[in-house]
């Protein structure tokens, strides 16, 4: 594995290798000394064109626990006001000798361009590109699901499990990454969203689509329910809004105590964070014993350690 750009590129054995490696990494995190010497002398750059403190500190913690040197590079700019070009940034990082670049970008495809533009030699790890992909998020989701719902997780896939993903699928890199990864791992995926937030052209995706959360709860034996964050700006903008009001969204798509109780007893509740309490998820659901939301964060560090390890140390082992 040279880069980690999209979960669509991962085979089932790739995915299981990452999850198993993450399990090993997680085990090391319970020791007294959590730092491993594995990536000593390697330089990992966190290149963030879009603010995301959570994702950045997760990658930073992962790289540091593997003893890599970490450089945080926050690049200004947006689709409206262009800052330094992607190309010039990449050339700068190349000149600094980055072994891996963890990139978060507002533009779909930026990670792919960085990996294939011929500007830098290091590995590229996609930490979220526009509305395209966020592979480590879905890997940590899969890791969390496997840990909770599969009896002997090591080496196992997610065969037989049903995962429902609720919310703004159209603009969600988390949904896109999860549909492919969970399908590859053998799970059944159900997307739940108003038709305005389902992309045109979704037919080939390996998943079902339903338009209300109640229908999803009634029609499927849901093992894991993943609530997506709803951006406030999707509801405003007058004629450009995707749904009529926050109240209506909460009524049809929000996870409250009542819907929580109608899920199977073993079902877990997930959220990639940060949550809008009271909008897509009620406090009761978020804080219930079925919620694994805080654990997702911890698993994120283990999964990112695994990805960095496999990209950087794995490469050396292969040589």
């Amino acid at each position, binding site marked *: 594995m040279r880069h980690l750009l999209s979960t*669509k590129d991962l085979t089932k054995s790739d995915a299981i290798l990452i999850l198993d490696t993450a399990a090993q990494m997680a085990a090391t995190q319970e020791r007294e000394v959590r730092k491993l010497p594995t990536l000593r002398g390697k330089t990992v750059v966190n290149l963030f064109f879009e603010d995301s403190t959570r994702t950045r500190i997760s990658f930073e913690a992962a790289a540091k626990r593997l003893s890599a040197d970490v450089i945080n590079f926050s690049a200004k700019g947006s*689709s409206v006001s*262009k800052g330094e*070009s*992607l*190309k010039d940034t990449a050339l700068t990082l190349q000149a600094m000798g980055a072994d891996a670049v963890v990139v978060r*970008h*507002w*533009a*779909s*495809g*930026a990670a*792919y*361009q960085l990996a*294939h533009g011929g500007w830098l030699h290091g590995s590229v790890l996609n930490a979220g*590109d*526009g*509305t*395209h*992909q966020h592979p480590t998020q879905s890997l940590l989701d899969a890791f969390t699901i496997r840990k909770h719902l599969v009896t002997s997780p090591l080496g196992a896939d997610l065969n037989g499990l049903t995962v429902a993903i609720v919310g703004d699928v159209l603009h969600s*890199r988390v949904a*896109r990454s999860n549909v492919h990864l969970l399908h590859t791992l053998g799970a059944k995926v159900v997307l739940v969203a108003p038709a305005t937030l389902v*992309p*045109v*052209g*979704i*037919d*080939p*995706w390996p998943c079902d689509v339903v338009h209300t959360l109640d229908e999803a709860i009634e029609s499927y034996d849901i093992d894991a329910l993943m609530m997506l964050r709803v951006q406030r700006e999707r509801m405003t903008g007058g*004629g*450009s809004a995707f749904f009529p009001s926050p109240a209506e969204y909460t009524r049809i798509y929000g996870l409250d105590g009542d819907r929580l109780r109608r899920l199977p007893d073993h079902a877990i509740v997930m959220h990639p964070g940060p949550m809008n309490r009271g909008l897509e998820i009620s406090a009761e659901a978020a804080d219930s014993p079925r919620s694994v939301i805080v654990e997702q964060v911890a698993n994120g560090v283990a999964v990112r350690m695994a990805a960095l390890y496999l990209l950087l140390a794995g490469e050396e082992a292969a040589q």
Partner: protein
Amino acid sequence: MSRPIVIKNASLYGDTTASLLIEDGVITAVGDVETPDDAVVVEADGLVALPGLVDLHTHLREPGREDAETIETGSRAAARGGWTAVHAMANTNPVADTAGVVEQVYSRGQEIGLCDVFPVGAVTVGLKGEHLSEMGAMASSKARVRLFSDDGVCVYDPVIMRRALEYVKTFDGAVVQHAQDLRLTEGAQMHEGEVSAELGLAGWPAVAEESIVARDALLAEHVGSRVHVQHLSTAGSVEIVRWAKDRAIQVTAEATPHHLLLTDESARTYDPLFKVNPPLRTQADVDALRQAVADGTIDIIATDHAPHASEDKDCEWASASFGMLGLETALGVIQKVLVDTGACTWRDVARLMSEAPARIGQVDDRHGRPLAEGEPANITLVDPNAAWTVEADQLASRARNTPYGGIELPGRAVATFLRGVPTHVDPTLEGAFA
């Protein structure tokens, strides 16, 4: 007095073999031509002679973006591609919305002399879609403008579109429409479909083009005027144009070489060289467009040659400008997708790329003329067996944004004559002119 030129044994329109004698910019004999002593002789066995190509849709970027293209570099690219006339779109800076700007563009083209540059005037002041520009002044200027377009932007307001269609009747002009519903395409990046869904790029739905094509056809019918639809890109637009023509509405339509060859699958590389407006569509759309060109529903091929400086393409897809080069590759692409597939003959190519665009642009007194005695010697010689690999660095355009880099095209223009003057001679024929 320049030397006479004899084009010996060319295949006229790809069907009859004959020689052409050119004297003082005019074709003076066709058939078994006697070669004058001082004549330049071009041995044209195996070459197809076509009337000089006429592009109805070119961006030359001058004035304003001379870092991307100039009238001179664009004219050279045109000559190399076999074009003897191009219609320069109005979206320059300043916009071609006054007689002053269009006269300057026209005169600069004449001064360079590599192809005739016919300016297209803006429909609205500054392309803003708010006030009609002084179309009458542009029509009666030295540039003799007959086509008006806000290309790059749709004339979106239906009342302004209606008025423009009515107003151009005064000087028998036509409104050339970039059909794009602006509201349905806010932030749009590529064709809306299965590929955009997967790539997470905002969709440009086919309906955003089709609804405007339908509206404009109905408006043209209502006021009895002429509308020309630019860069038709969807199977649905083809159906609407076919319907409009059946009703005898005065609508004409163009297709670009790239919409006849490439699909939205190209976006999977996230390489902005494939970002164009309207976007590359699906294979079903490509097939429908090819069929429509073959059956005459689509009247012409036009390039939408759109040069961009490298920094406007060497960036994130969403930040990149829309558009791709086309002048130098059009003939090769058309041979590949229409002639070599049997969908069209070279006779059809003469109609699609010279005669019909000259007629729509109302320059058919000078361009798109028959290869016959007494006609102006605007001639393109095509070598259909001169396969070549497109290399961006070798193009005459100042810009480098071709989507065909590394692709082999089956043939190319090997000589272009504008009123008898060779404006492009391929190295293989240079000996004749030594």
